[in-house]
């Protein structure tokens, strides 16, 4: 969820209402809120007008800098530390399709791996 979407949700306001106050197209606000358009890729004036319409500082709309894998500007340790903070502990939880399908375990859910594969011969690692 983008910061803009979180603020819209918190303030219980719509794309259209914000767009009207900011003198923008509702589609522009929607695309920024859904992340379809990155807020980093629009004019500063647009971000400022949305911030004013929401009565929040402009910085509140900017996404935190997510370190990217392999970024040579940061060491591996710095990249991984930042990624744990930003990715694993990201802000508001959002709906996600659960892998759970049933309230009760099926027959083999609890079978230990040794038993599960007990009758299976190992495959020769040298196979072509």
């Amino acid at each position: 969820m983008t910061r803009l979407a979180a603020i819209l949700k918190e303030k219980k306001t719509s794309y259209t209402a914000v767009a009207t106050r900011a003198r923008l197209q509702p589609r522009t606000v929607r695309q920024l809120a859904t992340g379809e358009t990155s807020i980093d890729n629009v004019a500063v004036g647009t971000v400022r007008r949305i911030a004013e319409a929401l009565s929040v500082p402009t910085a509140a709309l900017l996404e935190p800098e997510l370190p990217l894998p392999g970024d040579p500007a940061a060491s591996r340790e710095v990249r991984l530390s930042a990624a744990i903070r930003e990715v694993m502990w990201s802000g508001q939880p959002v709906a996600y399709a659960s892998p759970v399908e049933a309230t009760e375990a099926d027959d083999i859910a609890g079978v230990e791996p040794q038993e599960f594969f007990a009758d299976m011969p190992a495959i020769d690692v040298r196979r072509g």
Partner: protein
Amino acid sequence: MSVAAEDVYRRVDAADDLSSGDIAFLSLARSRLGGEAPPGEAYDPTGRIPAYPRPALLPLPHGREIAIDTMFALVVTHSCEIDRQKNLGASSDHFDCRLTVAPIVAEPAVRLVGPAADDLAVNWAAIEANQPVASLFLPPIEDVSVLAPGVDPLPWPRSFADLRGLTTVSRGMVAADRLFSLTPAYLGTLQRQLARFFTWRDIARHELVESLVGRIIVDAIPLNRRGDRLRIALTADDGSSVTVELKTK
């Protein structure tokens, strides 16, 4: 019953060979039709997965696109497969570079919902027990720096590897941003989950079952019993047979 972090994770050094169970920070690609929206409220209007942080979209010709999610993922390719070409004496320049990985979904990022967008109270308890076929539970860690020296002393939340999101990345990408790995013991659980996921709970012999449709079963012979499961050989009126396994309790 949940497993303890010390039984699940192990430390890896940068020089260690890649292996099944490695956990790394990666960019994962999902290619699809432009704007394709899977059903359900777990997806935003353009079909992206909000729980996956800051996806990027790359347009492709003819109305296709690639969604890219930058997140932690678990290597599920079997270690023997990873090492196979090396063991055969192939030059590293000619290794198949692909590794199959599953995205890791963290508890703080999601509210797990069922098909009808309903919250299921059993979700995390079931995931912790590795009950679903599509997930591998990953327990929380108090301080990741114990397993990954140099990384800040941060906690790692309760999470799971989601086998529904398997994709491939290069070996080099895993090596560059690897955090830690799974213990050999827990790799057995990963392999069991993979077998369950790809065979959907049991090895299905569709052709044998289909061949019995419309036939009369003329004989049923009990075979061996293993735990609470009984195997029975069924013989049809045309002489064909199939072995089925039944739960007895």
